[in-house]
């Protein structure tokens, strides 16, 4: 039984997209296949691994566990929308680089979304809160310690104070490379 198409309008990273889709299209497939936003990853596709995490109206959810049609009229933020502007990194993304909080990168977009959601609600989380926030995201290579370290680094008041004069992480590395 081929299902008829439904039209949805979903705001993703501040841009509104109207598309005709099959109702069975999951939100993650909509983001990746229809909008070509492939930063959100498909891991287990049944709600266990957290790789597909996105923000739905600001709250982290698993985009494999809802159909895109259910998000009609709603606003989504994906990993592509976390940085303040194109070409830059958010503090947390920068701290991930600095702390070696990623290796293969498969879980990273989900981890970043989960960490951004945490910091939006709790600007200076303690270790328990960080571990709780990423509890639904599986990493199979780096391990979790560096990810916890990255969130601590990004949210430490000392970093806040010195950031304007001292670039961190990738920006620092890039600056160093160009000096050579």
């Amino acid at each position, binding site marked *: 039984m081929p299902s008829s198409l439904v039209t949805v309008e979903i705001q993703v990273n501040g841009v509104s997209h109207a598309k005709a889709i099959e109702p069975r299209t999951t939100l993650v497939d909509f983001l990746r296949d229809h909008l070509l936003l492939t930063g959100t990853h498909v891991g287990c596709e049944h709600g266990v691994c*957290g790789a597909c995490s996105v923000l739905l109206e600001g709250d982290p959810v698993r985009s494999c566990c809802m159909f895109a049609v259910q998000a009609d009229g709603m606003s989504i933020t994906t990993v592509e929308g976390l940085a303040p502007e194109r070409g830059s990194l958010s503090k947390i993304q920068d701290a991930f680089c600095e702390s070696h909080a990623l290796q293969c990168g498969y879980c990273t977009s989900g981890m970043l979304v989960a960490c951004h959601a945490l910091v939006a609600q709790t600007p200076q989380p303690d270790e328990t809160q960080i571990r709780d926030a990423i509890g639904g995201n599986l990493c199979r290579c780096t391990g979790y310690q560096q990810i916890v370290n990255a969130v601590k680094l990004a949210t430490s008041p000392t970093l806040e104070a010195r950031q304007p004069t001292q670039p961190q992480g990738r920006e620092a590395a890039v600056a160093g490379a160009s000096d050579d």
Partner: protein
Amino acid sequence: MKAAPFEYILAESVDHALECLNQHGMDAKAIAGGQSLVPMMAMRLARPSVLLDINRLPELKQIKISANNVSMGATTRQRTIEDDAEVHDALPLVRDALRWVGHVQTRNRGTIGGSLVHADPSAELPLAATVLNATLHLRSQASGDRAISASDFFLGPMFTATGDTECLLGIDWPVWSGEGITTAFEETAMRHGDFAMASAACQLQTDADGICLRAAIGLGGVDGAPRAFPELALQLVGQRIDTSIVREVAHAAAQQTEPGSDLYADVEYRRHLAAVMLTRALQKASLHSHV
């Protein structure tokens, strides 16, 4: 791993939802949070031809708190309940249970009613509902309203008393009144957030001398449905909750269960875990009552 095609219907009102269920019967499935249903559809364990979305009905999202009752609309998000301090005060056991339910991403979508109707025998919220003997309110277009207690609602694994054309609209949770009420929820799972291998919940009321006035206990994950043990709970009443009575009651409860066996835990191990979890829960709750 992709769902089979279906027709999507967004319910515009409760009446509209009931009309849809009446028309399509078993071919239709109501979706609330979808945290179990969407994966089941992706694996084609569920294959409804009509998906009825009841997420946008504000009347199913209300929480009303009175002196002896908390009423929750079926599609109230688990995260909403988790973040509600007034619900915490009225229903500490629900707060304790939610700490074990999935992860923040799943609780942001998952609903109270969805968890109850899905009726996974290892799920935490059905156990809390069974221990407190919550009342579930069902409605169908043909036969109207009916209320059913949690002890009669859960019939087996993923199997409840909900009829094909019925929809769960809300849940009434009894609130115990008075001083000295303590609760505990204990669980063992392969990973935090997974469904339990064995879980235990209890709610106690003790007087200033540490004598138990009222008790409710239950076990999850060790039978086809969550189990409450009202007769065993009565053995605690009038007693000081010490180690020996805790062990005796927990052991007796575990012996009454009929757990399944799987790769992770066989029948005897699950029963053993059940006794340990209930012992810990009762000790934790009685410890708090002395503070």
